[in-house]
């Protein structure tokens, strides 16, 4: 496979994952806004924009936080390079670039959804359409992943796509956790108040983990439990541990297909060692923020090493 094609697959799936994660954030924000009074709702939207990492751009454009402004900014603002529309445009652009490395089913899943999304986002999205729009975006991701699982050859391309997916997902979860920790919980003494339960519930919803968490914890909700779940539970597909294992499998498969290991495998092994003895108490002893910073750095370094090892660029 061409290095450029591998790069295209990697980024196609990173952008897809990023668009999906942003849609999940919006979904959680919408739900919060529906259950709060107007003043708190404003705070919620501020928090959604901050979590999506779009605060600077948003505040350059808008002086206040309202739901309508916020979701339209995240969904379709032309000047926002991280809008869902723009990211999905990147997904499709990369899919065109690697058209002969993906199955027809996957291409059609991406292309059809892009056409529908472009149409739905061609004008501002009103209150009574926003949930539908978010649902369309999530369906697009589901369809693409389904097409990939059901029709893609398990060759190196599949593993580059997987690597892109899990590096992006891990990065997004770590960022959500980090931002929530600082923004919403300046001190652990607030734990247990009804506001914070709501905030933590939103964190879970942002990664579609609310249901799974409830099942595992019989409705008990606290910061430590959530951190443990989102960091260490390798049964939950949106935990750091799960992303880590999945990425390890992708990298191992790539090394096997190429008959040799590279820098990315070495970095992965080092990260393995760090993850192996981890429990939630050691995370908190180390400091959650410090842990997340380390994790994010290591995750990004693996991404860069993959690009090097497999000649993504000339």
């Amino acid at each position, binding site marked *: *496979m*061409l*290095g*450029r*094609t*591998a790069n295209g697959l990697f980024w196609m799936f990173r952008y897809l994952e990023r668009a999906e994660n942003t849609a999940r954030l919006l979904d959680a924000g919408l739900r919060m806004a529906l259950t709060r009074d107007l003043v708190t709702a404003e705070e919620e939207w501020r928090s959604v924009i901050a979590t999506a990492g779009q605060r600077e751009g948003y505040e350059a454009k808008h002086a206040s936080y309202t739901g309508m402004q916020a979701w339209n900014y995240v969904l379709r603002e032309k000047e926002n390079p991280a809008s869902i529309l723009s990211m999905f445009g990147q997904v499709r*652009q990369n899919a*065109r*670039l690697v*058209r*002969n490395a993906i199955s*027809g089913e996957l*291409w*059609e899943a991406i*292309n*059809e959804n892009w*056409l529908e999304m472009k149409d739905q986002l061609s004008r501002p999205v009103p209150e009574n359409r926003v949930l539908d729009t978010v649902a369309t975006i999530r369906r697009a991701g589901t369809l693409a992943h389904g097409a990939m699982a059901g029709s893609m050859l398990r060759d*190196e391309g599949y593993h580059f796509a997987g690597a892109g997916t899990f590096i992006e997902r891990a990065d997004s979860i770590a960022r959500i956790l980090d931002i929530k920790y600082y923004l919403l919980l300046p001190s652990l003494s607030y734990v247990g108040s009804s506001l914070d339960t709501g905030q933590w519930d939103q964190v879970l919803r942002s990664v579609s983990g609310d249901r799974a968490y409830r099942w595992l914890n019989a409705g008990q909700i606290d910061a430590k439990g959530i951190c443990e779940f989102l960091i260490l539970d390798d049964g939950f597909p949106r935990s750091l541990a799960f992303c880590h294992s999945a990425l390890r499998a992708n990298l191992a498969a790539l090394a096997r297909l*190429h008959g040799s290991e590279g820098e990315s495998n070495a970095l992965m092994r080092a990260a393995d060692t760090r993850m192996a003895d981890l429990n939630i108490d050691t995370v908190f002893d180390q400091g959650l923020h410090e842990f997340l910073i380390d994790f994010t750095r290591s995750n990004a370094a693996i991404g860069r090493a993959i690009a090097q090892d*497999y*000649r993504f660029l*000339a």
Partner: protein
Amino acid sequence: MTGNAEYFDEMHEADGGIRSPYTGYHEWFDGQDNALLRRKHSEAETNFRKTGITFNVYGEDEAEERLIPFDMVPRVIGAGEWRKLTRGIEQRVSALNAFMHDLYHRQEIIRAGRIPERLFRDNAAWLPHMVGFTPPGGVYTHIVGIDLVRTGADEFFVLEDNARTPSGVSYMLENRETMMAMFPELFMRMPIESVSDYPRRLAKSLAACAPDCTEGKPVVAVLTPGIYNSAYFEHAFLADQMGAELVEGSDLRVVDGRVAMRTTSGYKAVDVIYRRVDDDFLDPLSFNEDSVLGVPGMMDVYRSGGITIANAPGTGVCDDKAIYSFMPEIVEFYTGEKPLLPNVETHRCADEESLKYTLDNLQDLVVKEVHGSGGYGMLIGPTASRKEIEEFRRKLVARPENYIAQPTLSLSTCPIFTKKGLAPRHVDLRPFVLVSPDKVDITPGGLTRVAMKKGSLVVNSSQGGGTKDTWVLKD
């Protein structure tokens, strides 16, 4: 609906009868519900959008990708008609290939005084780099598109030869896929030749032209200018269908005397490049030094036998309309036979007499630039305004050798589906021809282009033309 005496209607006879290739289709069509057909028609467009069969339009931000209009009434060619056409095409393409070889070697045809030397000397597509060099397998024109027009029951003419980088074959294939999905019952009841193995035939034909240094199975790659090129979809499509890599100039470099592509496990030699870039963009060292699309040093590798380039550089000479005007002489010179497929009568404005005739009859003629393509830079006398004619007259007088003139042809029509039922529109036909060292292979079918506007004779997609599925019937 009945035929029109002015034009040859391929479906309807003048007295209202149905011509034999179309009887099966017509019978089926008569039994169809019009509302259902209209729905199918709009479904077809949705299908093209979904599969992404689009072409890019330069300089239009919002509508970056467009669909070529598709008409769901097939263009049908009888088995006997097709046999005659293929014999003519085979003869012409063989002659073109021999002509290329001669032009870059001894130039016997010029020594014999059959064509003037200035023809290629003035031709920008003629490449001095190719002189004295024979490409692997002796093949110059690996893929050719011959544009045919029809004016009567037994009257086909060649309008253009496309030997540079003919495009449109993905439409031949996708139009067929769409028709099969829409009307499976037609394919069950009518004996229609399949076109779907074209990519396999192309892969085989290209592999047969691999250079001697090839080790094992030839590595074939499609070279595209990139995602913004108007035909990018086709490049990706063909690479995918052939199981070949789709490369850009930036993926390639010369390594150890071979052209190699950057793969995830290092540089890997390419044996055959099916290039969809013009000669100018192949190698910045030999041609356009500003090009970022090409591969520095590729021509040196080529000349030392390290790679096959399809089509060979310098074959654009065949697309020149001044050369075209000599095709009857060229066919006869190399095959020793009279051409089976005639040219359209062509006046070379470089000749004084022809120029005078052309200037006197501009309102009746079609005047074309010799190097032009895609329907640009031409004058269609009968539909041009007085002002356009006068402007063209000035251009002609200034550079007569840059133009040829042809009579306005009564192009045949084939019905298209409209809201009001079937309506005749003018069509042409581009069959796709593959050349390998031991054979000329013509896929039974081709791209039928159709002028969607009533009365229009311009079928080019860049000017609002559409396409149809083309059916060649089995005996």
